[in-house]
């Protein structure tokens, strides 16, 4: 049993070295995300959690917008559900 534990520890340390060594080929190339959590995406998730009416829903763009717009007193709340895709605003000439 003790030997198994020793082997496990040894394996873990080897694996740990393999994963965290900067020169390791096994390290996933996730760039900055691997170095630190993306604070921006954490904020996005918090906003979505607070505003999504059904937290379990994974369906894109399902927000109960009219009550939210009314509550916010913003008559021209954009109709987000109608936008062609979530990254549309980056396009050069889509209005």
């Amino acid at each position, binding site marked *: 049993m003790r030997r198994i534990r020793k082997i496990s520890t040894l394996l873990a340390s080897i694996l740990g070295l393999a994963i965290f060594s900067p020169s390791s080929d096994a390290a996933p*190339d996730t*760039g*900055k995300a691997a170095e630190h959590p*993306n*604070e*921006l*995406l954490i*904020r*996005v*998730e*918090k*906003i*979505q959690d*607070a*505003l999504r009416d059904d937290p379990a829903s*994974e369906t*894109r*763009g399902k*927000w109960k917008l009219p009550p*939210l717009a009314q*509550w*916010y*007193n*913003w*008559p*021209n709340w*954009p109709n*987000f559900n109608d*936008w062609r*895709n*979530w*990254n*549309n*605003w*980056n*396009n*050069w*000439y*889509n*209005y």
Partner: protein
Amino acid sequence: MLARLSRGNRSWLKNSSPENLVCSTRSGQVLFGPLELLILQGTPFCNLDCDYCYLPERDNRSHMSVETAVAAVQFVLSAGLVDKEFTVVWHAGEPLVLGVDYYESCIEAIDTVLPPNVSVTHSIQTNGVLIDEQWCDFFERHGISLGLSIDGPAHLHDVHRRTRNGKGTHVRVHAAGEMLRARGIDFHVIAVVTPETLKHPKEFIEYFDGLTQSLCLNVEEIECDNAASEILATDRSVDYAGFLYQLHCARVELASRLSIREIDGPITSILQYRKTSEKSSAFNQENTPFRILNVNVEGDFSTFSPELLGSRHPDYGDFFIGNVHTSSFESCTASPAFRSQWSAIREGVDNCAKSCDYFDFCMGGSPSNKLAELHKLDATETAFCRLQKKTCTDVGLRILEDISGNRLRQAALNDK
């Protein structure tokens, strides 16, 4: 009928060096097109001489022949770049100097070569000084998607947007906007934002509220002939964020129906962002090959950012990859010019993905801004990124955090 490396262009792929051409998108798929914008330079000439203009040949009075316009459409159709619809944008000069008859001829000729299952929208971005009732009839007749360039009230607009005699153009452009509004013709506005604009958020909103329902803000960019920009010279992220936030507050206060691309776009992106969403490509319209095709008066064409039309660079020449009269799609995609541009742009996007937290809301930036500011296509963050992407996203986050925070507080009060 998308032109994908993995499908339509397989023969070309076989004859090329795939390792140079296949890029590492998150979905592992490379898309060429589908074409969204066919940008036709009717003429490089402009009747104005705005001091921040980036167009290098605005004294050149040549114009694109109807045959070249038709050849451009035939080229994108035969290349398999068109899905079901695309937009022809008449741009890169002042389109209206060519007159109504020119566009009537072009539209009629283009319609004759369009298959029945493909629809085209014609779009014109104009400085507005030539708009009259005859133009309004034309816009209505063809359902033209129209954009007007106005920088706000006269004291902001006339400083930069002037005639060749140095006179301000605000009176004429504003009159054009009023004429369009009176005729019920929808149009969006593109307003160039300078450091002076940032001082007048409320006046800015009050001016545009009611004139248009769609406002797009362009910070003055460093591109082509415009080698310097006061707003990009120092980091004005904080000032620009404050300006945008005040624009939003002002429109809420006015109960305005004005949509502002630089605020509502990021808000949409934030609300619809999904970490596990299926993204067809980790690239945006400007850095994906053949989602935009830019054709000059002679029929020479480039892809990627429209502003590359007219740019020159020691490594990439004039950015043209073919001519609509003489080139095949296969020859232009196999050309050294295209391959060197695409390789560098792809590397830049990959570098952006690795180094920038905002990548998911930008998808790799704009090649023309990278080139103009940092003199290479494989660069990452530009001053333009900091203002138009990062700052806008930050403002979207702040507005949504206001809303979500208030909503949670309201829910807590209701519970009591």
